[in-house]
């Protein structure tokens, strides 16, 4: 009773509380194991088989690294997804900001508009873009009619078209994660910055953006991963000359029926994303630690 006990450090405070939090994680973990991890494990297993021969083989991996096309597709995927992630975040930010801060009656309308594209199927939307971007499409028609150009601009069947199409597909997701994050920022901080002479642009740059890093990371991660695994849009808008991993994978699955090779490409994609998302999450966590100091929270 009279001995002075050394205080227990908070981290190891209560094992019971910890086990609660693992319990909270378990339904998701279970779901993901059964419907994602195990099936994907199977795919990884398949990637090391060679159907004709059976047994263990790294032939598909050898092919991936040597055929030239696969690695090119991999790089194309990374570049395309990176561009989409940036485009989505940059274009989405003003809309998200408006949605998070505006009290105008247009807010609900803008909100609905921002979500609207998600509600129309991807395929149909992509046709919409085709009609707009094609050589004989809406934009080229108008420009040709106005005499501004003499031959159609190459707007479709290339990286540009795919990035446009995917940006359109992913934008609402970016907007929503940015909006959620911006809403969490205390408005009086903006006011404080304004009082110190910061223009709107500076307020955004020095206050809103740094404080919405979780949202920005979310937006970049979601956009990157969605873009990289998207199939329909690159297939329709990219044309025969622009193949990314996702389209190549589905060709392997459906057309060539070479599943080991498809699995290898899928694994490559998975690895890319794992690295990217770990970097993103890690960056965000570092940022949070820096922001919140050594753990004490006031004001």
């Amino acid at each position: 009773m009279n001995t002075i006990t050394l205080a227990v450090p908070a981290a190891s405070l209560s094992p019971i509380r910890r086990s609660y939090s693992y319990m909270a994680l378990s339904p998701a973990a279970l779901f993901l194991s059964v419907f994602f991890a195990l099936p994907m494990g199977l795919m990884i297993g398949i990637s090391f088989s060679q159907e004709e021969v059976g047994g263990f083989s790294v032939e598909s991996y050898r092919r991936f690294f040597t055929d030239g096309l696969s690695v090119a597709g991999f790089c194309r995927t990374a570049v395309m997804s990176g561009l989409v992630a940036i485009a989505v975040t940059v274009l989405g930010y003003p809309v998200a900001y408006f949605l998070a801060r505006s009290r105008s009656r247009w807010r609900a309308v803008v909100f609905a508009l921002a979500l609207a594209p998600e509600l129309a199927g991807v395929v149909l939307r992509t046709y919409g873009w085709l009609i707009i971007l094609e050589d004989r499409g809406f934009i080229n028609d108008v420009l040709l009619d106005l005499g501004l150009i003499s031959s159609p601009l190459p707007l479709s069947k290339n990286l540009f078209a795919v990035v446009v199409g995917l940006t359109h597909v992913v934008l609402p997701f970016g907007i929503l994660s940015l909006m959620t994050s911006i809403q969490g920022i205390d408005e009086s901080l903006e006011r404080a910055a304004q009082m110190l002479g910061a223009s709107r642009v500076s307020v955004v740059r020095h206050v809103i953006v740094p404080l919405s890093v979780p949202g920005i990371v979310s937006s970049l991660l979601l956009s990157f991963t969605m873009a990289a695994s998207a199939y329909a849009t690159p297939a329709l808008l990219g044309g025969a000359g622009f193949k990314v991993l996702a389209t190549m994978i589905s060709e392997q699955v459906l057309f060539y029926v070479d599943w080991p090779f498809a699995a290898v490409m899928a694994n490559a994609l998975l690895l890319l994303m794992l690295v990217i998302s770990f970097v993103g999450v890690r960056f965000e966590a570092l940022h949070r630690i820096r922001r919140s100091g050594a753990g004490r929270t006031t004001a």
Partner: protein
Amino acid sequence: ETLVVNSYGGPYEEIIEKAIIAPFEAKFGIDVIYDPVGSASQDYAKIKATGGRPGFDVVVMTASQSLQGCRDGVLEKLDVATIPNLAKLMPRLAAAAGPCGAVHEVQYMSLLYRKDKLATPSSWSALLAPELKGRIVLPTFQNIMAIYLVEMMSVINGGDLVDNLDPGFKAMEAVARQSIGFEQSSAILESYIKDGTVWAMPFWNGRAQLLVDAGLPVDYIRPKEGTIPLIATLNVPVGAQNKQSAMKFIDFFLEKTSQEAWIGGYKVGSARTDVEVPEAIRARQITSEADLKTLLLPDLSLVAERLPRWAEQWDRDVVPQAD
């Protein structure tokens, strides 16, 4: 009793309901559930992934999948004992589909053209005509039509169907230079010719006929060098739940009267030589041994095996030619 039949949607669905399914149900008292989900290759992927138990009993695919499925052991081998009508099929066509597929329909790759813009062509070489510069569209390699076109070009230019395709690829480079690009979906391909952006392209004749019937200013030919058929098959996954009924259904589909109804409705060819169809249809479809002679039948298992290599060649040599 029920039977689940997987096939295609769209007009196909309407016609098969009327021409085949309704009479079948009436005759056998079996309820047919029609499942229009998936393309042939998606269906095959599903069959393969489920180890032959995809949930449907009969599926419409093509000879390529039939061969593959047999090899992979996920499709039931069909047997004249349970499907007597198999014996009535043209042997060469039946053989092309292997033991697991029942050929219920034959189409061929035709040359579709705008008859208001072009004089009737007669050869595949017409695709190289100067007036067609920028007026043709080509299928992507994931549309089997692409490799068939290469093979035809190869045959015309001194190569052959599977062993030496280099002349074909060479010729395709020139064709690609004429084209405005590549499309995978038949629906999009046909939209180009509908609105007059392109004047000619290779196209399955069944769908080409539908366009003609729709009154568009288009027509199609079976070029003088011959062409390669699209052999559609009925298959039964090994794990099908209602195999009995499935066999009955296939036999019924291959029945003379059924084949006549189907040919008349969907405007395609048949592997039966004894069908009686209107002259207008007979003139354009494959319905006889004589017609069969105009068809070239590459070994589909060899094609499947070499496809990845050819794909690389196509991507390397042909695709960049279209700008």
